[in-house]
């Protein structure tokens, strides 16, 4: 398990991961920067502070699980796993290249350390709940975390899973909605508004915590509250900024699925210095 880090260390890690996200997508020439950058603090907090896991022992049966249901944001997951030492860092720049372990969407065949192959939105929460049920059956105390996109939760399956999770009192699963307010074609409010989102999840029987998804101490408190909540699953509604950390990507729907040019990479790296 990684040693506990100070807030400053965690923030520095977040910045380094942002740099790698920008660099790797720039090198690939395609990919999804916006939704990768919005989730950086969520992954850093989970992997460096909240989750029980061991980079020396990736298949440890008692590890906490993390599922990136919004698979297109895999650069943030790849950069984090590489930073932790699970996977080689130098290969990050081979993202999306033929034969690379860092496939365009998470692919367990190429990267067995992943908990799931994702990329078709809407399925991760069901999968995570299944893992959480297995933990319960086996009398194990590991927890399962599932990161969802805000656009992603328009999928009906997410709400079928939500209903199931509450009905079966799956309190060892924790969902996080990366609420960056933008999806592929534009702003969520214009494509298919989700509001009022908090009462929706509450109506489905979940414990809901609203949190600033870039505020690491707030995320730490929220995950602690989730772990302490018994008898129902918890969802974090994490308010985030799509493209966070790079001025021209922030809140800009264009950078959902467009790679930065070499010049843009340079500007971005200066901003993230």
């Amino acid at each position, binding site marked *: 398990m990684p040693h506990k880090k100070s807030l400053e260390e965690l923030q520095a890690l977040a910045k380094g991961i942002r740099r790698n996200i920008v660099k790797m997508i720039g090198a*690939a*020439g*395609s*990919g999804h920067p916006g939704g990768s950058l919005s989730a950086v603090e969520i992954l850093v907090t989970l992997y460096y502070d909240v989750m029980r896991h061991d980079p020396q022992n990736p298949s440890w049966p008692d590890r906490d699980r993390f599922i990136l249901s919004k*698979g297109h944001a895999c650069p943030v997951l790849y950069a984090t796993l590489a930073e932790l030492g699970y996977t080689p860092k130098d290969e990050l720049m081979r993202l*999306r*290249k*033929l*034969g*690379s372990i860092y*496939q*365009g*969407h998470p*692919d367990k*065949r*190429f990267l067995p350390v992943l908990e799931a*192959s*994702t*990329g*078709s*939105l*809407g399925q991760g929460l069901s999968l995570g709940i299944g893992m959480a049920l297995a933990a319960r059956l086996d009398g194990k105390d590991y927890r399962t975390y599932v990161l969802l996109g805000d*656009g*992603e939760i*328009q*999928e*009906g399956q997410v709400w079928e899973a939500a209903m199931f999770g509450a009905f079966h009192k799956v309190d060892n699963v924790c969902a996080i909605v990366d609420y960056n307010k933008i*999806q*592929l*074609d534009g702003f969520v409010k*214009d*494509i*298919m508004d989700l509001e009022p989102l908090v009462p929706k999840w509450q109506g489905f029987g979940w414990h809901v915590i609203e949190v600033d998804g870039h505020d690491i101490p707030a995320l730490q408190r929220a995950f602690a509250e989730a772990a302490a909540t018994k008898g129902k699953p918890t969802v974090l509604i994490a308010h985030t900024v799509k493209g966070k950390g790079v001025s021209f990507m922030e809140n800009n729907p264009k950078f959902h699925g467009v790679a930065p040019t070499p010049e843009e990479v340079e500007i971005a790296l200066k901003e993230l210095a």
Partner: protein
Amino acid sequence: MPANTKFALKMGVATRVAFGDALLELARRDDRIVVCDADISKSTMTHKFHQEFPDRFFSCGIAEANMVAIGAGLAAAGKIAFVSSFSCFVLNKGFEQLRVTVAYPELKHFIVVGTHSGISIGEDGPSQMSIEDMALTCALPGFRVLAPADEVAMRALVKEAAYHGNPVFLRAGRPKVPIVYENGGEFSIGGSNTLIDGSDVTLMACGLMVAEAIRAQELLEKDGISARVIDLYSVKPLDRETIARAAEETGALVVAEEHLVDSGLGVRVAQVVSETAPAAMEFVGLTGYAESGPGGGLLDKYGLRAGNIAAAARRAVERKRVG
């Protein structure tokens, strides 16, 4: 199309782009046309329709199963509904809805358009690559399945699909593809086009594999093998007569598709051939999920090139010879 014209195969636009343009053109003349899209209109190219006809465009969010049934409702109530997303999402997520709300009631004026079909989409990888879509849609009773090779074919088939009496799946691709029908062509549901005449072997293909089949014919010609090339853009229903004639006259067939080889065009052709004029057959297609990489590099790596078709043709001809 006169047989044995030379094919320049100049690069054209992607079939998804031709779809978006043809849809718009059609919509300007027919206000029954409506469009449903699932947060991917910039990629399926229905965003042009959205801009011009906002009242007839329905943004469904990332919820493909619901979208299919919404489109079915629109079609059932008199509209001509085009329902679009990436092939893999709209067909896999919406399959049950296609079955019960579209195929079962024999709905007409319902066109599901799947873009980004096949592995040539490239870097996004297998979760976004549709390689089962023809299997799924051909399985649905009444469905028509069209896989145009280029922009000319797509433009013509959008019109055919809109006014057909059965539900239709239109298969579109992401990358630019060469123009096969530079001098135009005729297209009808259930039809095919014999692009090149030949007597030793027949190469049949759909979608972007048609251009590869044309190139394969050139390779085979150098070996002294005379190959017929047929564009089977109408995957369902097939042009049985043309297939049977080719089987009888050439006695050796290759079917090429950017789809799983176990469940696509090839097995459908084999059914016709076995019912009419049994012949030596070879199949070029995919046997499993691919990976990320440049689209062209993937077509090379996964054996979907002219060279692969030519090699299969030599095998078929050899088998015909030894009997």
